[in-house]
């Protein structure tokens, strides 16, 4: 079981790194899906089967599909000049060394101090549901209102605007050029 945790954790971290350093948006999204799936494995190992299922269904199934939908719609694939400069080694080597020192201190503290194990028992989905709809009932309702606001906001923002942005600006003339 321990080796499964370590393997899933390293797959998650590695695929996240690949996701943020990839140039192609679709490839990065596929790496991100792999990262979410391995985090779901970690959830299952930790004794949270409901959360593991939710991670696969909602995160990897719904949210990532939204991302892929938008990327396919925009038909992007080219990278920018500034990012190329920022991904060169001399830009990030000194902050990386400083951050590595802090990371070493963190790992040392974890090694030295008392460690305790966790996840010895599975928390069943029934308990989660009972807690969700008794203790946290008002929060569930607030989350419903938040989702409603998200729907309304996405609909309002996602609408195609009218062609004339401002009454003094022509349709697609010189003002677009100087912005881009």
């Amino acid at each position, binding site marked *: 079981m321990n080796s499964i*945790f370590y393997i899933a954790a390293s797959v998650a971290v590695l695929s996240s790194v690949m996701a943020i350093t990839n140039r192609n948006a679709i490839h990065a*999204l596929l790496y991100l899906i792999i990262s979410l799936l391995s985090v779901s494995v970690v959830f299952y*190992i930790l004794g949270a089967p409901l*959360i593991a299922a939710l991670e696969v269904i909602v995160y990897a199934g719904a949210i990532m599909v939204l991302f892929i939908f938008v990327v396919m719609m925009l038909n992007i694939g080219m990278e920018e000049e500034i990012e190329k400069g920022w991904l060169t080694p001399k830009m990030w080597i000194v902050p990386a060394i400083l951050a590595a020192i802090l990371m070493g201190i963190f790992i040392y503290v974890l090694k030295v101090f008392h460690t305790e*194990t966790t996840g010895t*028992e599975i928390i069943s989905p029934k308990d989660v549901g009972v807690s969700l709809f008794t203790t946290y009932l008002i929060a569930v309702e607030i989350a419903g209102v938040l989702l409603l606001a998200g729907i309304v906001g996405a609909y309002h923002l996602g609408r195609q605007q009218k062609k004339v942005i401002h009454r003094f*600006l022509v349709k697609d003339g010189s003002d677009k050029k100087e912005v*881009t």
Partner: protein
Amino acid sequence: MVTVSMEMQILFAGLLFLTGLVGFLVRRNIIFMLMSIEIMLNSAALVFVIAGSHWMQTDGQVMFIFILTVSAAEVSVGLALILQMYHHFKTLDADALKKLRD
């Protein structure tokens, strides 16, 4: 079930969060910035589940569900904003938005 120490699990969540933070700071493509935010939210939710599993309480998993809700709402609004940005500026570079006119 698993006997990995809690510190290693927190370390794993911290590494995931760090990855998302670095991606948010380094990338200028706004879709990648939104993806990095997703990674960070996911790692924060992972810490909740780890803590809930450690003390054998259901509260951590309930918090995960709420974070999932917030993340879904944020992604839908953010992607709609990205679509609007692409229609207006014909680019996904976040630096194109630094001029606060038009």
